[in-house]
């Protein structure tokens, strides 16, 4: 694509990413409902389209046709900005994700850093959404979401630092490029540090917590806080929160597969490409859903204790052991 003028490339990728985020969210909503259905001895949506696959489209049309109501006494600016902000961060992180060897919008050498820099702005969206909607449940939920995200960013970044130390690069494509086949994936302990599987588990749990997914969905704990920070949102305001959430879930799982499972590389060396990336990411997303429909929710204090007393020490141990091993070998 290098021969095309730069402006076309930008437009193609912007359009592509926007379309992907939307379609991905629609697909994930359908998938979540199907997975939940089959886990719960029912079949989930089946009426709209084949296997109910158009259900999300129908839901989307319904959400878009609803009036946007700003509650009385809510802060009108913050209230409107929050859903847009969560959507913007979700779209922006897709810029550096390598779907295939050449299928990446911007192949920059600090891709990993950029993802975390932008994704952490998402917390701000939850905070101002909860604060701006003038609802006590939303405020409690927003404070919960912030403390949770702050707590889990620490161990997550420490594991990421570990990975950067092993790979020696923050370029996501290069990280994937180093994991040729199954045996070279960074999830296995012989590829740099014996604690790599632990690092993967820490990263995965932290990405669950970062994206507010069960069992860490304290932000929207529906039996305690009604619907958390988006209690007062309806129509597409709610829809954007939803899109953003699924976008972040996808990014979290995509990062896990890039860092640990070899991204677009094929486990057996045949035909690396975008399909492998998709398979790995959606498998991880399936695991995320599986966890959600199996476990009840933790409490906020249990969650913070888990982060500061378990996750942080373990991730530090991973970092130190890895550093020592890199120095020695």
């Amino acid at each position, binding site marked *: 694509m290098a021969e095309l003028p730069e402006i076309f490339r930008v437009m193609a990728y912007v359009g592509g990413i926007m379309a992907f985020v939307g379609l991905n969210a629609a697909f994930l909503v359908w998938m979540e409902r199907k997975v*939940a259905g089959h*886990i*719960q*001895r*029912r079949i989930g949506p089946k009426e709209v389209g084949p296997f109910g696959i158009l259900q999300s489209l129908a839901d989307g049309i319904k959400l878009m046709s609803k009036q946007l109501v700003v509650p009385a006494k809510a802060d009108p600016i913050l209230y409107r900005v929050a859903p847009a902000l969560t959507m913007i961060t979700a779209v922006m992180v897709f810029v550096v994700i390598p779907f295939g060897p050449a299928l990446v919008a911007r192949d920059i050498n600090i891709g990993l850093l950029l993802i975390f820099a932008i994704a952490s702005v998402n917390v701000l969206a939850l905070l101002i959404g909860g604060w701006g909607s003038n609802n*006590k*449940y939303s405020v*409690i939920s927003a404070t919960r979401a912030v403390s949770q995200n702050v707590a889990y960013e620490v161990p997550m970044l420490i594991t990421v630092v570990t990975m950067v130390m092993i790979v020696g690069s923050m370029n996501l494509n290069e990280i994937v490029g180093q994991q040729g086949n199954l045996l070279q994936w960074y999830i296995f302990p012989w590829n740099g540090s014996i604690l790599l599987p632990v690092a993967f588990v820490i990263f995965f749990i932290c990405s669950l917590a970062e994206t507010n997914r*069960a*069992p860490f*969905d304290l932000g929207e*704990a*529906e*039996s*305690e806080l*009604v619907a958390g920070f988006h209690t007062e949102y309806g129509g597409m305001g709610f829809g954007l929160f939803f899109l953003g959430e699924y976008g972040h879930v996808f990014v979290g799982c995509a990062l896990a597969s890039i860092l640990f499972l070899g991204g677009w590389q094929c486990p057996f060396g045949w035909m690396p490409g975008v399909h492998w990336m998709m398979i790995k990411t959606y498998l991880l997303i399936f695991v995320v859903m599986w966890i959600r*429909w*199996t*476990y*009840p*929710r*933790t*409490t*906020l*204090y*249990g969650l913070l204790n888990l982060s500061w007393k378990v996750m942080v020490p373990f991730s530090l141990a991973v970092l130190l052991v890895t550093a020592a091993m890199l120095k020695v070998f």
Partner: protein
Amino acid sequence: MSEWAADPSYETFVLNMGPQHPATHGALRVKLRMDGEYIVEAEPVLGYIHRMHEKMGENRTYLQFMPNTGRLDYLSALSYNHGYVSAVERAAGITVPERAEYLRVITVELNRISSHLLWVGAFVLDLGGFTPLLYAMDDREQILDLLERVTGSRLTYCYFRFGGLYNDVDDDFEAGARAIVKRMRDKLPMYHNLISKNIILRQRLEGVGPITGEMCRKYGATGPVARGSGIPYDVRRHEPYSVYPELDFDIPVYEQGDSMARYLVRMDEIEQSLRIIEQGLDKMPDGPVMAEKVPKIIKPPKGDYYFAVEAARGSFGVRLVSDGTNTPYRLKLRSPCFSNVSLFGEAARGMLLADAVAMFGSLDLVIPDIDR
């Protein structure tokens, strides 16, 4: 309110949980004064679906009031039928054929299982686990199907009559009931694996929301709430009625008094109810299901009468004051949930919101039963 809470520099806010809130399972409102996520004071506000059943009782004949009893605690309506019917029978001096009493006990226990199953599902839903609700609903459906065939309704039963039952069961009932016993016996280990052994759930329940036996006594809490606090009080054993003395079953009691204990009491009660049903089916004699000499118009002699039964949520009592006419002079319905929820204010003080929701769920409240 404690002294530190009275300090003007100490800031709290009021959080209205309900009347429309997912955790209250009906139109109940809890006024919470919060310090961040900690509860300073909790005050349940009742009456959103108050229907004045007791006044209705004074304006209807004894039989006409029967359907109302199924609308108090709509999840264990047959227990309430049983309590009311037995109270009137005690007042009017009617004896019931044995087969009818056995069938009453069997259907009441089936109803108790269905009530506990729904509670388990709703309780785990309060804790954020959605899946067990649908498993429990699935099993409950089988029981409702069976009871529907017998009684004609699925939820608000009105099956018992003074002196017996509305009608005898059909030929398939016994096989159906035994099939349910078998199915539930097979399913219970699954529930324990999915719920009781779940580490997150245990952490959320163990030691959370302790209620002491003394508190139960002061507030009159009965049923699984009291039995989870080490009080072996069950009307079926304590003050035997119907054919319960002839049946062999245990009263599960746990000493801890926390939400986990209340949960385990109910899970064990499902097992005991299965035993009761099995024995009832074995021992049930043939014969009529209606006493022969039941007057068309019931006119109990003057005086007041009390009858208590063990409903799924505790001791349900009927105080009947008769003036010798065909309508009750005064009908007091003592509902277990009313007493059980009255201790929430004291028990929830100083708790976290999430823990209070767990404890609230473990009390197993049915709002129409509280509000009557």
